[in-house]
């Protein structure tokens, strides 16, 4: 895939999301479902890789870019991640406090709730790829519970899952 087109598609999903992973449904529908340049397994891996290091949750886009287009693709992913951030400058200059308007807030809340629903609905096809047996299923459930109900850092959850995967292989 052309790197510029990749950038535009990734930009489309980053500019229509308002927090970390809400860019996911759009990204999946463009790259996995429509253009077939990315597999669910690669997308899954990208999400895991994105949370292994520091930095915002949206950083998985860089990994997605690499899977689709190598190093130039990764750069396209990085650009798509940072481009929308600069929109805040015109906001600061012209809009000021008006952006805290209840109607704007309500719209963003509504979009975020819908994005949550979208993420849940793509979990299903992605889980079909990732959950191949009892062990991956257990890892998924335990990760979900830990991340939701404790304040354990994501990095430890990933490390634990990697070790569990390794032990499952060795035993």
């Amino acid at each position, binding site marked *: 895939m052309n790197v510029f087109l990749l950038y535009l598609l990734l930009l489309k999903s980053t500019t*229509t999301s*308002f927090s970390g992973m*809400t860019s996911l*449904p*759009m990204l999946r*529908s463009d790259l996995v479902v429509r253009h077939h340049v990315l597999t669910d397994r690669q997308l*899954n*891996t990208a999400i*895991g*890789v994105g949370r*292994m*290091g*520091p*930095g*915002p*949750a949206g950083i998985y886009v860089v*990994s997605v870019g*690499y899977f689709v287009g190598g190093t130039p693709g990764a750069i396209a992913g990085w650009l798509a*991640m*940072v*481009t*929308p*951030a600069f*929109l*805040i*400058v015109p*906001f*600061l200059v012209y*809009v000021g406090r008006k952006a*805290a308007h*209840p*109607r704007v807030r309500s719209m963003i*809340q*509504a*979009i975020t*709730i*819908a*994005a*949550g*629903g979208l*993420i*849940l*609905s*793509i*979990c299903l096809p*992605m*889980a079909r790829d990732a959950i191949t047996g009892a*062990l991956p299923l257990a*890892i*998924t*459930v335990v*990760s979900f519970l830990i991340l939701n109900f404790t304040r354990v850092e*994501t990095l430890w959850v*990933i490390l634990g899952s*990697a*070790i*569990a*995967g*390794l032990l499952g*292989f060795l035993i």
Partner: protein
Amino acid sequence: MWTFFSICLRIGNLTFGGGDPTMAALYRELVERRGWLTREQYATAYALARVTPGTNLLAFSAGCGYLLHGWPGALIAVLAITIPSSLLVGWITMGYQAGHVNPVVAAVVGGIIASAIGMMMASAWQLIQPRIREGQWLRCLLLGGGAMIGLSVFHITPIFLLLVAAGVGYFWLAPEKRA
């Protein structure tokens, strides 16, 4: 400006756990310790970052950078926060692609992939759960459930579903948060 760059570099790349802890760390550094930004400026940047598309943390740091040093400040903040972590992510991905035929690597990645599904479910829940706690269960049911059905049953494109959600949010106002 150099000090600002190194603050962004340090806080952006050594704080795990995503946006909010990082923004809190920047608050301590820029507002409380150094007094470079006023509390009001911080609050404005924070509020505007939430309505700026994309990653909140990046918009927020670009905003702080702009308030301190204009456009170069905004650029510096975003570069300092994203370059090191992006390089790391790129390298890990590269390593994975080179080694994924190895069964041991495949087993480890299998574990990570399974937990990524758990992470996705947790993130979706955390987007919706605070709204349910505010008593907006009907909004959550209709918007979240509607989006789910629209995508998985009718295969409507996400951008259209999000636009509809924005329209719903515009006319059906969210209740004001109690202070």
